Structure formats: structure tokens, C-alpha cells
């Protein structure tokens, strides 16, 4: 496999694609939203249970490519237990990383597991795949029911 390809399809990503974490519906949830990427058919639902400003539980379902699915999976694992404010900050940092705006190595390292998606910035058409779950989570927090990354 060449280097760029190895970078985008890292083992962690392939692993989360194969066995996604928190792949279920929270019912009832306090917040939820549906995300669509009509171009490629990625379709994700994000469910949140927020108690006193803290994400007590977060999950997703739907279907999509390896990048979108693993991104949703890793997002849910990383955000559980965080406050809503923290989630918003991480969302912005993640977004900056995949769009190539965040280049500081140390800051990227601070994103922990999420840093596996930094290779996506070399594949502009796939940025939407990596960020769909995040936009959907963000929309759920702001009570928007459907978002698209069109």
C-alpha cells in the first residue's frame, strides 16, 4: 500500500469500520439529528443523552463509507463524558484538522485518537465523509433535525 493510502486507511479506522462502537439507538434521547451526504449516500443518525450539560451517552446508526462510519464511531467514544462546551471545542479542532487549517503537530497530537483522521486532508472529496457525524452531532446539540454536507 502506498503511503497516502496507508495514512487514510489506518488500522484504527479499518477496525472501527468493521466493529463500530456505540452503534445503536438511544431511545429516548434528549438530542438527535440526521445527517445526509447526498453525493455519496452516507446517512447517519446521532443520538445524545445530555444530563446537566454533560454528554452522559452518545450513539449513532445509519450507513456510510469506512471513513464516515469510523469517524462516527471514534467520535462517540471520545465525546462520552465530555461537557457540551468541550464537545463544541473538539468539533472545531477536528474540523480544522481535516480541512487542513490545523497544522500544529502538538495540537493535533492533543486530539488523541481523533488524529488518525489527519490524513483525510490530502483527500478533499473525503473531508465530508470524515466530518458528517460531527456536523450531525453539532446540529443535534442545536436542535436541527436534518443536516447535509452537500
Amino acid at each position, binding site marked *: 500500500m502506498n503511503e497516502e493510502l496507508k495514512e487514510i486507511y489506518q488500522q484504527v479506522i*479499518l477496525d472501527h469500520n468493521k466493529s463500530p462502537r456505540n452503534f445503536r439507538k438511544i431511545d429516548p434521547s434528549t438530542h438527535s439529528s440526521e445527517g445526509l451526504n447526498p453525493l*455519496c*449516500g452516507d446517512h447517519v443518525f446521532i443520538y445524545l443523552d445530555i444530563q446537566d450539560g454533560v454528554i452522559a451517552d452518545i450513539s449513532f446508526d445509519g450507513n*456510510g463509507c469506512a471513513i464516515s462510519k469510523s469517524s462516527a464511531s471514534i467520535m462517540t467514544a471520545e465525546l462520552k463524558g465530555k461537557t457540551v462546551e468541550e464537545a463544541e471545542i473538539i468539533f472545531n479542532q477536528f474540523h480544522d484538522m481535516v480541512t487542513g487549517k490545523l497544522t500544529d503537530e502538538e495540537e493535533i497530537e492533543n486530539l488523541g485518537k481523533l488524529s488518525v483522521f489527519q490524513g483525510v486532508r490530502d483527500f478533499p472529496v*473525503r473531508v465530508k465523509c470524515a466530518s458528517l457525524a460531527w456536523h450531525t452531532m453539532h446540529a443535534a446539540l442545536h436542535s436541527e433535525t436534518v443536516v447535509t454536507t452537500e
Partner: protein
Amino acid sequence: MTEEINGAAYSHFDPELFRKDFPVLHQNIHGKPLVYLDNAATTQKPQVVIDTIAEYYKGYNSNIHRGVHQLSQKATDEYEKARVKIQKFLNAPKSREIVLLRGTTEAINLVASSYGRKFIKSGDEIIISEMEHHSNIVPWQMLCEQTGAVLKVIPMNDLGELMMDEYKKLLTEKTKIVSVVHASNTLGTENPVEEITRLAHTVGAKVLIDGAQAVQHFKVDVQAIGCDFYAFSGHKLYGPTGIGVLWGREELLEVMPPYQGGGDMILSVTFDKTVYNEIPYKFEAGTPNIADTIALGTAIDYIESIGIDQISTYESELYLYAEETILPIDEVTLIGCAEKKGSVFSFKLKDVHPHDVGTIMDMEGVAIRTGHMCTQPVMKHFGVPALSRISIGLYNTKADIDRAAEGIKKVLEVFA
């Protein structure tokens, strides 16, 4: 290059020779020679087509049907010559039946809004099929919303063939329009458009055939089909983007109201009354796409210099080679197995999402289409969110298919 197994027509066909005519093919993508297998989305352009556009802008750029000066006369002549080439290419009876538009989508929209607005009433029925491109679904849905007409859909079987018995049941005296695709962009199915037309005419319905995936692959004769309208796009026929064609029967175009108002579509304008121009100009408001129309004429000359029947034979052989080469890969499931099908190979690759397939194949230098192909009802029928599609053009070779097969194996390696 001669291919003994494929008979005489094939032996004269040398894709390597044609490849030289297409500058874009000669480049590396991610360090590997480009293999372009996304021809159903758009075909590449031969140098002669590119030159025609440059010659127009360099030599005689001018507005048509207006000036008395020499450049305008030359531009008008070339523009109208292209119309005649298109007429002959489709074997249409008259060149005044050829309306020059932006593409197939605009052609279908023109019929839906112009013919539809005048002749479709509440309770009338319009028939399309399950395998239509969104461009042959949405304009009719819009017409139904505006008029209260009802949209009916011919179902297809799991091979990707239209169910003709079901179609016959849908036809009634309420049916006013039947609009179906000649060849499916997703499944490759070549539909029996003559039979579809004949049956529609028994109940007095008008028939539009969407030829966007047909004219570049086999001979189309609108008189033999017997349909009332036929639409296609230049850019899928090795011509430029932004130019397309609607052929319509003279007597229908005559009674249809203009689609857009403006210059060139009028004979006289006063604030009391405007007299519309004759067909086809009535439907060509504003300055048209002159350069690309002339270049579409060149693309037709190019196709005819090779021979559409030769292209057809060669592409069918190459498609069979794709089946032989790619189907033995266990994880590949072919979607679209119609008995009569063209040069489209859409597939599922076990549980790997098509976008991952597309990205990895691109890294191997192989350009294919992945996604829903603007045919979401087809995706629904086969229970998939998206598909990967290899589509063949006249310049593709067996080596291209081999590279595609290697690319697919590379995907499986990553997703092992």
C-alpha cells in the same frame, strides 16, 4: 492490433490509434498512467473537438442569426451545419426538428414544461420507469404537482429489465406521456424502445426517449424507434459540455408554446403582441452555445469516421472481457444483468462502501464512478446505498480492464 477471436469488424478497430486523439488520457494520476473508466459520466474529448472550439474563438467568433457581417455569416453557417449533422446522425426527418439546448436534462425539462403545460390536465397519467435517471423523474414530478397529473412507474426485475407486462397494464386512455431511458446509466440495460413506443401509441400517448447513454454506443434512428421526442447530451458523445439536443416531431414542436422568452425566439415584438419565431428557433431564446454546437458537429464527424457500428461491436467485446476478468473475483457482485445490456459494469464489492473503492482505485490511477449515479430508485431496488461503476468508451482497452481488476484487488487487500 488484431483480435482473432472477435471477427472482422473488431480486427479493424484499433483503440490504441484512437487513444492518441485524446490528450487527457496521456497523464499520470498519483504516479500511475490514467485509466479512465467513467465514460457514462462524461467522455473525454478528441483533439479535433478541442481544436474546433479554439478555431471558432480565434477565427470567427460572432453572434449568429443577427449580423450582416462576414464573421456572423460564417458562425451562422457553421452553427446550422452542425444542426444538419445532428439531424442526419439521428436520422431525423428535418433539421428544423433539432432543438439545441444545454443537455438532456434541459431537453426533458423543455418537453415537460412546454408540452406539459399546454396538454397535460388533472387526472392525466405520465409513465416513467424504475431505472430512470433523476433528470427523467423530477421534471415529470414537477409537472404532476403543477397540473394534478399522476406519475406511474414501470417496475423492473432483478436482472434490471423493465417488466413489459406490467407496463402494458399501466397503459390506459389516461396515459398522455411515456418517458423512458434508452440505455440505463447504472445498469447498462438497453430498453426495447420500439416496443415501448408502439404500445404507448396504441393509447395515443406521446413518447420521449432519453438517449443520454445510447447515442455514443450504438446507432440510433428516431424514425425506426417511432418515438415523438428524443434527447441526448453532447458531452457523453465525445463532444463538449453544455450542449445537448432535443429532437421532436415537427407537428408537436409547432403546437408547443415557447420554453423561455428572449431574443432569437421572436419574429416581432411590440408591447401589445409578440410573434414567435418558427421552430426550432422558438425554443432557442438568447445567444446559444455557438462554439460547443459546432464542436458537437465535429464530435459526430469523429464518431462517424470510426463508425458507430464498429464502436458498438468493440465496446460489447470489451464489456464481455470485463465480465470475464472481474466477475471471477469472489467478492464482486454485478448489478444489472439484463440480457441486452451495454458497456456499463456496476458492482458491489462485499461490504466495502463504494466511496472507499473509488478512493483506493483512484490511488491506483483508475477513475471510476461511485455513488448513487443519480438513480436512487435503482439503489433502493437493489438494497444498496451506492454502487461502483466501470463504464467503457471507444478508447478503452483490455489493459484498462486489467488495471481495474488489479485496483479492485487492491481494495480487497486494504479491507482484508
